[in-house]
């Protein structure tokens, strides 16, 4: 049942030290092949963009990498270790963080409590310790609140800390989600359209912010984005995806000049511009 793609599965010279290595991942929904032997490598500390028209399989790829979809074939490695048999929450412990295209978060919790919930993997007190207010619970809570306090300053969410998600603008929600995922201290961060629904001014802040996050934490960032300015300006390397296959790979400049990418994604205007240039 699995189609093998020897040429795509062939090992990339970079694969050995890759932070995230996707090898021949295939996902089918019934008769539709959403991902067809996708192979990609992301190096530690690298910012990589993922480009493609709607329905190209970008979010499906993220879901397969983060464990919300089980691929029909292929291997996903995080820092060299296979993770494809793990549950999503186990992949978080392995060092993978991701955001979603539609931000919802936890609507019954304040911003502060949302961030507390994101500290889950750093804490250890049992429910009984909490019910009896044992010292282990108290240490746990102290640590959680200290981490949240630091995160509030890092992402500038302090003015909203006691607000509920539904009281916030979509842009602020995006930053809250980013802060939650950063709390996991991931080694690879998957961001699914972080600029969607936020103001242009905030989009412009996002690029430098992502670079700063990368510089501060050393994590690799894998980015799906339709805002071309952000994607081209922030990514160091770009993969282009169409009909579930990688159609181009290279620097932003190379990919944006690729005829296949122009055809499938960037459209006529860009093609005309490229032709005129």
């Amino acid at each position, binding site marked *: 049942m699995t189609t093998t793609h020897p040429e795509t599965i062939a090992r990339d010279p970079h694969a050995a030290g890759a932070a995230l290595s996707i090898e021949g991942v295939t996902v089918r929904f019934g008769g539709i092949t959403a991902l067809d032997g996708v192979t990609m490598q992301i190096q530690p500390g690298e910012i990589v963009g993922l480009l493609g028209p709607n329905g190209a399989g970008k979010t499906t790829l993220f879901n397969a990498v*983060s464990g919300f979809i089980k691929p029909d074939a292929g291997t996903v490695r995080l820092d060299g270790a296979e993770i494809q048999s793990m549950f999503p929450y186990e992949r978080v*412990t392995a060092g993978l963080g991701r955001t979603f295209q539609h931000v919802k978060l936890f609507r019954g919790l304040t911003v502060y409590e949302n961030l507390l919930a994101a500290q889950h993997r750093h804490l*250890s007190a049992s429910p009984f310790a909490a019910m009896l207010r044992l010292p282990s619970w108290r240490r746990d809570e102290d640590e959680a609140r200290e981490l949240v306090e630091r995160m509030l300053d890092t992402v500038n969410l302090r003015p909203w800390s006691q607000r509920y998600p539904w009281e916030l603008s979509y842009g602020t929600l995006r930053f809250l989600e980013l802060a939650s995922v950063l709390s996991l201290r991931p080694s690879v961060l998957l961001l699914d359209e972080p600029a969607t629904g936020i103001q242009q001014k905030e989009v412009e802040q996002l690029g430098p912010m992502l670079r700063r996050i990368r510089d501060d934490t050393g994590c690799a960032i894998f980015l799906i984005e339709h805002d071309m300015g952000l994607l081209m300006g922030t990514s160091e390397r770009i993969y282009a995806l169409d009909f579930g296959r990688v159609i181009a790979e290279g620097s932003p400049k190379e990919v944006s000049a690729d005829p296949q990418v122009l055809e499938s994604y960037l459209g006529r205007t860009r093609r005309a511009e490229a032709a005129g240039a």
Partner: protein
Amino acid sequence: MRSTITAEEAIAEAEAPPAARRLSVRFPSLTRGRVITGGVLLGLGLIPVGVDAARNTTFWEYIGAYIAVWAMLELSVVVVTGYGGLISLMPFSFVGIGCFATGLAVSVWGWPFWLAVPFAALATVPISVAVGAASVRLKGLYLAIATLTFASALGETLFKWEAFTGGQAGHTIDRPKLGPVDFSGGFAFYALTMAVALVLVWMVHGLKSSRAGRAMLAVRDNEREAQALGINSTKTKLTALVIGGALAGVGGAFYLALLGSPAPAGFQSPYVDVSSVLLVVWAVIGGIEAASGAFLGAFALIVQQQVFQGAEKLFVFIGVYAALVLVVFLIFRPGGFVQVVKIQSERIRVNPARGIPETAGLVLFNVIVIWLIIHFGTVATKT
């Protein structure tokens, strides 16, 4: 709840730099919220004693114990449905397990009551795990229906198994003793159950601000996002069900001590379903997301039952009244009584000149409603 801070804590707090002090604000011994919650719960808990003292009766001590025991049962709904977001329509079946496990341990095996209480809590675990297995696949309405069928299946098997239930009449136990203290008296038993209920409220309240409690709230609000933040949703649901089941089990032990010998028929369909739905409805009215809501819900439920019991002519309308109350709460105060208390105390704080009369009016309105029900419902005795 601690009511004072020790000298060391006071010194440490005074010496701490501002940033650290802001962190330490989270464990204050007395905050406004705590004073209000504690005051309201204790005040409501003491009403029966006051009524008895004023009227020279002991009836309301029994009602007070009833409120306390139902508060324990409501706590299981708070943890499973309020925190965990799992709509279980079988909380009363867990009460039954706790009840008959205690009866078996005390009246057949001759265990002391105090040992039977943890046993009752443990006895619920297998059923909690079974429901947990279902909850992995079933969500919302489907889980609710599954738990209903679970409850009726238990009613036809476990609660008809005479070795467990002690036959049609159930087990009979005496109210517990602890050394020289005998809790068989009305007031002593009332004080015991009220103390246990308040301790359990305190425990469930603590759960909410902990790793496990926040995981429950997160899974309830958005399971996918919770998993993406490293939370094991299956384990979290199971934890909520096991803790909720154990609370119902403990409540069941005291339920047995309160009633003496409840019959197993009460844990078979349709009675068990009625009781379970009643628990869920009044947990919502009390405030399903807060531990104190369990207490307030139980208080309101028992008061309502007593008022209608007194108002014989209107007794048939008890369900209509409960439905009306539920709908009004769901529309205007979905957080239940807890939200009412919060909003009113906030209004009093912000603008006492308006808040106090408003709150007094609210209380007066309820007293008038109760008075009207009793007035028009009581069958006039000819003199």
